[in-house]
């Protein structure tokens, strides 16, 4: 459970995080989405008790991050953006160290369990320095989970690893979401869309939008799009032809076909087919296009 109220962080006179508020319930995977320098890492650091907020409050599992920092730290598993490693320790020793430091009762058992979870059991005696990047990422995940925290905070866990491993990590995060509250940051939208129950878009320290990916899409999507491929007509005639249809707001050429922006809520597919046939051309393809979150995101962020 994460409750954030008007959280603000100032560096000198620079506002890194400006009055953000949100909550994340148990069993929820919340994505913090935003470009680099948006304030994602700062927000997470405040939530982990690494740095105190300038204003506002944040509660983790009911404990305030400024007042009960120790209680908060016990209940948070944190994976910083760059996986922190002790190169000269073995995988097992590394995880056991963090387990002991966080007061885990039965370190050996927990270490075994968590290594099993992240699929590193066969590497337990390898030195951390000899692990591949993806394995290190999983190792980082393992240390964040070893004390079975209520809240897991992951800062860009998929950055810089190869696609196969990205899929693995995303899968792990989704699995985590079943038991823990997961706050996870990314600047890749599709990732947020795939993994998260809820997405918070943050830019320049402000929350720009938040909600479930589907809701968010609806909220942000300002109109429908159609894609049409027409044979026999050049660009000018095609736009003229299609532009005359009521409800069509704009036409852009895209590859061999055209993207038609349509007023929200209007279905103009029939009219399009009819016009094309009437004009003596052949309609090769006609389909509705769903705008990606990425495009919406850029749309939103770009306006700031």
């Amino acid at each position, binding site marked *: 459970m994460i409750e954030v109220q008007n959280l603000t962080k100032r560096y000198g006179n620079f506002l890194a995080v400006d009055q953000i508020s949100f909550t994340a319930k148990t069993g929820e995977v919340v994505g913090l989405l935003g470009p680099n320098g948006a304030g994602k890492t700062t927000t997470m*650091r405040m939530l*982990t*008790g*690494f*740095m*105190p907020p300038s204003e506002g409050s944040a509660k983790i599992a009911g404990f305030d991050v400024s007042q009960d920092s*120790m*209680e908060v*730290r*016990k209940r*948070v598993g*944190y994976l*910083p953006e*760059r*996986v*922190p*490693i*002790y*190169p*000269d*320790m073995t995988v097992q*020793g590394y995880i056991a*160290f*963090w387990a*002991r*430091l*966080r*007061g885990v009762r039965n370190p050996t058992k927990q270490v075994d369990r968590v290594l099993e979870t992240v699929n590193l059991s066969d590497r337990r005696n390898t030195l951390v320095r000899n692990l591949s990047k993806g394995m290190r990422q999983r190792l980082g995940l393992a*240390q964040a989970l070893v004390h079975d925290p209520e809240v897991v905070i992951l800062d860009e866990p998929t950055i810089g690893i190869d696609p196969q491993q990205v899929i693995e990590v995303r899968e792990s995060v989704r699995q985590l979401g079943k038991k823990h509250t997961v706050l996870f940051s990314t600047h890749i939208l599709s990732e947020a869309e795939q993994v998260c129950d809820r997405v918070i878009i943050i830019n320049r320290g402000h929350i720009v939008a938040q909600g479930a990916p589907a809701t968010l899409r609806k909220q942000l999507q300002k109109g429908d799009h159609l894609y049409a491929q027409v044979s026999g007509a050049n660009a000018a005639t095609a736009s003229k032809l299609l532009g005359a249809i009521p409800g069509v707001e704009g036409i852009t050429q895209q590859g061999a076909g055209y993207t038609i922006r349509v007023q929200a809520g209007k279905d103009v597919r029939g009219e399009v087919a009819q016009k094309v046939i009437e004009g003596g051309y052949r309609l090769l393809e006609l389909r509705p296009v769903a705008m990606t979150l990425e495009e919406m995101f850029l749309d939103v962020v770009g306006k700031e």
Partner: protein
Amino acid sequence: MTGTWTIFRREMGQYFTSPISYIIAGALLILTGLYFNGDVAYSLTVKAINPSLIPDFMATAMIFFGPLLTMRMLAEEQREGTMELLLTSPVNDNAIVIGKFLSAWVYYSLLLAITFSYQLIVARISNPDMSHTICAYIGIWLYGGAALAIGLMFSALTENQIVAAFLSIATLTFLYLGDVAGQIVTNLDLARAIRQLSLAAHYTDSFAFGIVRAEDMAYFAGIIVIMLFIAVRVVESHRWR
């Protein structure tokens, strides 16, 4: 407490599982061994065996040896990013610094204990002033603790080990040479003040002579406490800087 113990254990493990710490220890033992044999050969005819031989040597050696032991301790945590994890773990900031300091001190104490075997050899072939030697060892043990605390403080200041080592060596050299401040400074009171600050003056005039002065203990304990306090504040500053 548990935090300190856990950190301490990890650092000790680091010392015992890293080949470099064995190389450092071996090299130091060769030096002290040569030094010891030189004194034994000299004592055959010319003079009595020096009761504070190895401690005297360590007083100089700690200028380089101390920073070597501490330079990575906090600097590496910052460079590898583990500092962020330590600071978000449920441990006190004090525990991090103290755990690390204690491990360096214990490692150093073990090395001192090994060199004490020379004294046992001397005891077999001669009749040395054992309590004098023990006194000198107590002194150099405290002296080493202070030098390590200084090294640790500089390790906290920077994430570059080399810079940390350089700064500590420079400071320790200054504190060591403070003993001869009188040679450089003509104002007697100033020279005395500088001398009171120097590490060597609190060892060479007392412990090395076989006497324990309360003020020297206070000095070394004070240096350790102050340096660790500053180190903790510096570590803490990661939270707000």
